[in-house]
């Protein structure tokens, strides 16, 4: 599997990372280098093997869907890049 420049641009778009056209050749080389190297996994027979999600030391716990540390609105908003009163502000996206 080898990535072409169009695929590099598409991945960057999916990842929402802006790239310049001049970045594409270097990224293409690096990503292809890594992907070529991980191809070694094709040597491994994984027929019938269950995929490992997490490390399996404990079953995932659930808890009631309730607020456990409420009344901290100001703390939640304290790192917002831009805010007005008790709100996040975002750029206008609908004309």
């Amino acid at each position, binding site marked *: *599997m080898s*990535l072409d420049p169009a*695929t*590099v641009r598409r*991945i*960057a*778009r*999916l*990842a*929402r*990372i*802006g*790239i310049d056209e001049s970045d594409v050749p270097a*990224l293409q080389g*690096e*990503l292809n*280098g*890594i*992907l070529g*190297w*991980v191809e*070694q*996994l094709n040597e*491994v027979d*994984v027929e019938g*093997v*269950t*995929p*490992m*999600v*997490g*490390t*399996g*030391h*404990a079953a*995932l*716990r*659930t*808890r009631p869907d309730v607020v456990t540390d409420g009344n*901290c609105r100001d*703390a*939640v908003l*304290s*790192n*917002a*890049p*831009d805010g007005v009163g008790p709100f*996040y502000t*975002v*750029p206008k*996206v609908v004309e």
Partner: protein
Amino acid sequence: MSLTELTIADAASGLRARKFSAVELVRAHTDAIAALNPRLNAYITTTADGALKAAQQADEVLAKGEARSLTGIPLGIKDLFCTNGVRTTAASNILKNFVPPYESTVTANLLRDGAVFVGKTNLDEFAMGSANITSAFGPVENPWKRNGDDAALVPGGSSGGSAAAVAAGLAMGATGTDTGGSIRQPAAYCGIVGLKPTYGRCSRFGTIAYASSLDQAGPMARSVRDCAIMLQSMAGFDERDSTSVNCDVPDYSAAIGRSLKGLKVGIPAEYRAEGLSAEIETAWQQGIEWLRAAGCEIVDVSLPHTKYGLATYYIVAPAECSSNLARYDGLRFGERVPGETLDAMYEATRRAGFGPEVRRRIMMGTYVLSAGYYDAYYLKAQKVRTLIRRDFTEAFQKVDVLLTPTAPTPAFAQGEQSDDPVQMYLNDIFTVPASMAGMPAMSVPVGLGATGLPLGLQLIGRPFDEETLLATGSALEQAAGFTHRPAIRAEAAK
């Protein structure tokens, strides 16, 4: 002995015996930071004023005879742990102004036990790296020097600032996080002890996420006993981390010096890999002899999927990172860069906020999770991960602990390794498999190589059996008598 050369265990007894005060102890460290940090860059943020206030309170607690295990002990905190009211950057521009309004569970536990935080230590950006050269706040210099050579060496990564701070006497101990070797490899490069606990042993709540199924917090210190003392405080069940495991935390210090008679130590054949330097091979052989002399039975074992650990890691970790780092969008937090459209704003924000290694891993992860490639890469890697864990499970039916090298070479110089990402990834070849399997593992310094740099050996244990690591590690430590200290350190700078 200088206050910056003491172990945590000795400092805690010295404080109780009133040989020195917590203020004196903490001030010795904050002065050392002021003198050496401009060169070593081990700390991103220093907190001398807060630390001295906390030290005064510690002295009051000591005067009342109410000291806890870490009362008055100056620690460095990897800048990946959220600390209430103290800037937490993950060594990234995107979080350079982030001040958490809450405390991570691990740091809250250390504060509960009286620890004094002297600053936030440098790391690879979002913990992605093996040399501490990807930090947005600049590289960390390893306090060790090669014989007769002043070249600046890397401290390893990602917990390179923590390792350098502890080695140089700028903290008595420090927290690290380990995703694929980020505690053990820098511990080996800097001649200190570092322990990655079993996945689920220490809470991940409030630790900035890189790859959630792998990330685990652990202690870094100058002795095995000090790691036991720190782990005692850091470990424990936490409801706020859904992967935290609810099982009893044993008395870790009790494991130090425990008899090893009859303990079965496995030597995995596959760790005699290409690229293993001759001096590390020799140190490994020496370690085997020391453990044999301590009464252990040495058993050859095989972990056949070892060679696939790294490739599996570089699919699984980027996949999880691309998902975890999606939250840095410039809307809720992160430094916002304006754009004409919403997508343009996201793209500009994330381009400006993330360095090249982080961007590369996010893109790798996005690709392996994307439609059409998920099965070929991500699902395949998850299956190989099962086989890697199975190797360990089978080995631990025959042996109690495994002994391997920690890293294939000693510390290298800044800029000495090629720009090829795959070459850089190979530094973690011996640490990644235990991470993939979630097993606890520890690095212990055992000697100096031909160029005068520290060499570490790795112990890997059964899940939740950190005690065997500590017992075996203390035997190695005692046999090695590792009392070497780096050229650049607080005591030498006076």
